[in-house]
């Protein structure tokens, strides 16, 4: 069962590719309306965890429950990926997250498939996301492959948001994005969260993401290693040592954190 | 009934050698060569053409195998790097080019009429009289040994199968050698092997050439068994059958190849003998089609439900690529 305040509850997730086991029993919770960050070294299985949650990789063990759009719990352990958008779960992969050969508008139209065609509801949602992402709205007719890294990330998020999801999974939204865009993307994410969206985000830019996360998990070798609120982890000496770079003083981190944090 | 089994064994021996080549290329090295029949054709034609132009048979045979290897390399150099579906299509197209060329280069090959026309229409060309002399020598030997006159097919088999078993042993050894293990590693993860500093491309070329050479040997025996052959003997289906044999036994399972070949040759030779109900409902010509329907169904069932073949059990034998 999923606790009443949870948007996502994954327990004991094991998964892998062929013979290679990557995840060995990972537990993740996302409380409704919060931002949760997953961090960890390269290859620790962060992307695999998201892919397993959305059904692109099969669960070898464990269960994944979400709270659907209507508030009812849904077991998505065995679900096909294409049914999830309709339930209110959207996902932006780490790489190749737009259809590069298709136009920006077509990308959004595809995102709108779960809304049932190109009717009034789609038009209304399209207008909403274009307002949220003005960068995208100017390029509707362009081939998505011609967009810059940051614009692609925006398009991918717009595509994911067009269904008005309740839970959004983002895999390294800052990867391959110019620095000035990164802040924009992060501030968008905070914006959505304030509107009630639950967000599970995998991020390498740990300082920045911890700063605005309510809670964070650290994975290592496919297992939970640490967890805590964003603030706790930011100040945990072990975390600083291992993941945030030892060279910087905690004091500096605190200031940075205070600068960007908007959630209690 | 003896006649039936002799025919089956002769066909199966040729298929064994041919399929061994495919086992090396496809089973071990992961190169789905759908045009391997072309190398059989090239070897058979090169040998026959050499003989009618005056080369002795024992010199012409290596010429045939050499030609097959040469063309094998020619095809392999540009194609072995391709993704497997592209490789499949490229090799099948190459095989068809060879067949169409053989059909159309009448002065060289005798065209559609086959090798009887090797020296031009009207003159019956003969490339295998020295083979037949050799074979009848063997036949005499065996007849003396068993004390009664044996059919000439027995002599053919007595020459073919030792060669086939020798090649089987050789391939078995190759597969287990470091060379074979490297090839299998390449099949599983090419980049990892390349990272170890091995020349992946060279290994693939070697595997392809070994397969072509074995097809060449099969081509020689095929040519010797019949007295004239034509380009249509080397349709793409020939290679498809070899795929069936290799998959039947589990794609890396060397000793299953002759068993698969005998089974397959039995089904093929057997239409004349498959005259019991319900097959007797069909005219004998129709039974030929029916058996191909059954082969097709068998192949489908096998690949879907028993990708490791009927003899194979190891995961490695499974057709997953």
């Amino acid at each position, binding site marked *: 069962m999923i606790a009443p305040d949870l948007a996502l509850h994954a327990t004991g997730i094991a998964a892998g590719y062929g013979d290679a086991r990557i995840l060995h029993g990972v537990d993740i919770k996302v409380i409704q309306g919060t931002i949760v960050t997953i961090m960890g070294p390269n290859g620790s299985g962060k992307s695999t965890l998201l892919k397993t949650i959305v059904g692109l990789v099969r669960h070898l063990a464990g269960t994944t429950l979400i709270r659907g759009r209507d508030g009812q719990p849904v077991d998505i352990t065995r679900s096909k990926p*294409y049914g999830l958008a309709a339930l209110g779960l959207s996902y932006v992969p780490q790489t190749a997250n737009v259809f590069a050969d298709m136009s920006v508008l077509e990308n959004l139209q595809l995102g709108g498939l779960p809304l049932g065609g190109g009717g009034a509801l789609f038009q209304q949602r399209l207008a909403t996301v274009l307002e949220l992402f003005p960068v995208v709205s100017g390029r509707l007719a362009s081939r998505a492959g011609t967009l810059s890294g940051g614009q692609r990330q925006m398009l991918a998020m717009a595509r994911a948001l067009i269904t008005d999801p309740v839970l959004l999974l983002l895999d390294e939204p800052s990867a391959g994005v110019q620095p000035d865009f990164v802040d924009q993307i992060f501030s968008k994410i905070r914006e959505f969260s304030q509107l009630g969206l639950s967000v599970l985000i995998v991020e390498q830019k740990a300082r920045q993401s911890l700063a605005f996360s309510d809670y964070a998990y650290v994975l290592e070798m496919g297992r939970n290693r640490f967890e805590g609120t964003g603030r706790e982890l930011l100040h945990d000496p072990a975390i600083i040592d291992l993941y945030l770079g030892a060279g910087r003083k905690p004091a500096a981190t605190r200031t940075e954190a205070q600068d960007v944090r908007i959630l209690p | 009934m003896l006649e039936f089994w002799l025919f089956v064994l002769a066909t199966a021996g040729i298929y064994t050698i041919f399929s061994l080549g495919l086992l090396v290329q496809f089973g071990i090295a992961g190169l789905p060569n759908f045009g391997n029949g072309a190398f059989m054709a090239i070897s058979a034609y090169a040998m026959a053409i050499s003989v009618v132009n005056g080369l002795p048979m024992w010199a012409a045979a290596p010429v045939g195998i050499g030609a097959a290897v040469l063309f094998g390399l020619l095809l392999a150099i540009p194609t072995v790097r*391709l993704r*497997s579906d592209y490789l499949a299509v490229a090799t099948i197209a190459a095989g068809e080019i060879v067949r169409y060329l053989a059909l159309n280069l009448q002065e060289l090959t005798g065209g559609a009429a086959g090798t009887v026309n090797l020296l031009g229409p009207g003159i019956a060309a003969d490339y295998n009289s020295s083979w037949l002399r050799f074979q009848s020598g063997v036949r005499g030997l065996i007849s003396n040994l068993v004390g009664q006159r044996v059919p000439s097919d027995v002599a053919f088999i007595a020459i073919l199968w030792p060669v086939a078993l020798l090649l089987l042993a050789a391939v078995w050894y190759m597969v287990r050698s470091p060379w074979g293990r490297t090839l299998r590693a390449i099949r599983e993860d090419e980049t990892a092997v390349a990272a170890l500093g091995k020349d992946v491309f060279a290994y693939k070329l070697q595997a392809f050439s070994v397969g072509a050479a074995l097809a060449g040997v099969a081509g020689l025996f095929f040519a010797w068994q019949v007295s004239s052959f034509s380009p249509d003997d080397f349709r793409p289906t020939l290679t498809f059958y070899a795929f069936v044999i290799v998959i039947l036994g589990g794609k890396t399972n060397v000793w299953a190849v002759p068993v698969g070949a005998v089974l397959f040759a039995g089904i093929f030779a057997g239409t004349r003998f498959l005259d019991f109900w319900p097959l007797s409902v069909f005219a004998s010509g129709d039974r030929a089609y029916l058996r191909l329907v059954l082969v*097709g169904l068998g192949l489908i069932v096998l690949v879907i439900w028993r990708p490791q073949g009927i003899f194979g059990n190891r995961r490695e034998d499974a057709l997953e*690529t």
Partner: protein
Amino acid sequence: MLDQLLQLVFNGLVTGSIFAIGAIGASLVWGVLRIGNFAHGDYMALGAFTTFTANVLLGLPLVVSALLGVAATSLFAVLAHQLVLKPMRGRGLTSVFIVTVGLAFVIRNTLFLVFGSGARRFDIDQAEVYVVGPIRMSPGQAITIVCALIAIGLVGWLLSSTNIGRSMRAVAENSDLAAVTGVDTDGLATITWLITGALAGLAGICLGLVQGTFDASFGAYTLFLIFTAVVLGGIGSAYGALGGGLALGLVMEVSTWDGFAGGLDPRYKLILAFIALILMLLVRPEGLFGKARIV
């Protein structure tokens, strides 16, 4: 000589549009479903023979028979997908290839069993010739041109302007992303086979009409030309397959024009096509019209 060229161009467009109709479907399943279908040529034969049954054996008008033939092939393709190809999902390209070889054996030899090995023809006046300016065309060619225009127009519209078409292109580009975006990949597979089967059936009927006579293996003989068109256009690109088919038909016919140093011996037309196929795979595996992509 110019008249000869015009005639050859026309003939090339006719055969080219048959290749194109066949190739669009083959390319779609290859790109969208990752199935290189060795039975595609036999699907074409199936279309021709079901039409033949309705037209010649049952005496129905050709148009009605052709519609029946297209529908039957389409349904068969879906059935084969459900029974044979769907269980193969997640398996490698080569295994799938081999399963379709089995499927090809079954279809072709069943047709031989049922219809015999003799040459068959549709109930149409083969001797009739329409003359339009310098061009002479058979009724089969005229029908083919009309069908090709309709089919290609429909497919173009479907791909560019409908959710189904967009979904197909999306899956062809990145099937995982398409799935998480909400494309029902299972349903789409069925629809793709429905379309591919219909197009293959139509291609087989047109080929039968243009050739005049056919037997159960005539589709299989055409398969490699279809594959050539697919590869010319870039695997998975329906527009590419259209261009590739037309280009292939034109090149094969026009190469025999006397203006080219007496013209290529028609016997070598096929070899020319296969050499084009291999060269394409080596030099531009992404197709003539595609942009560079990693093989």
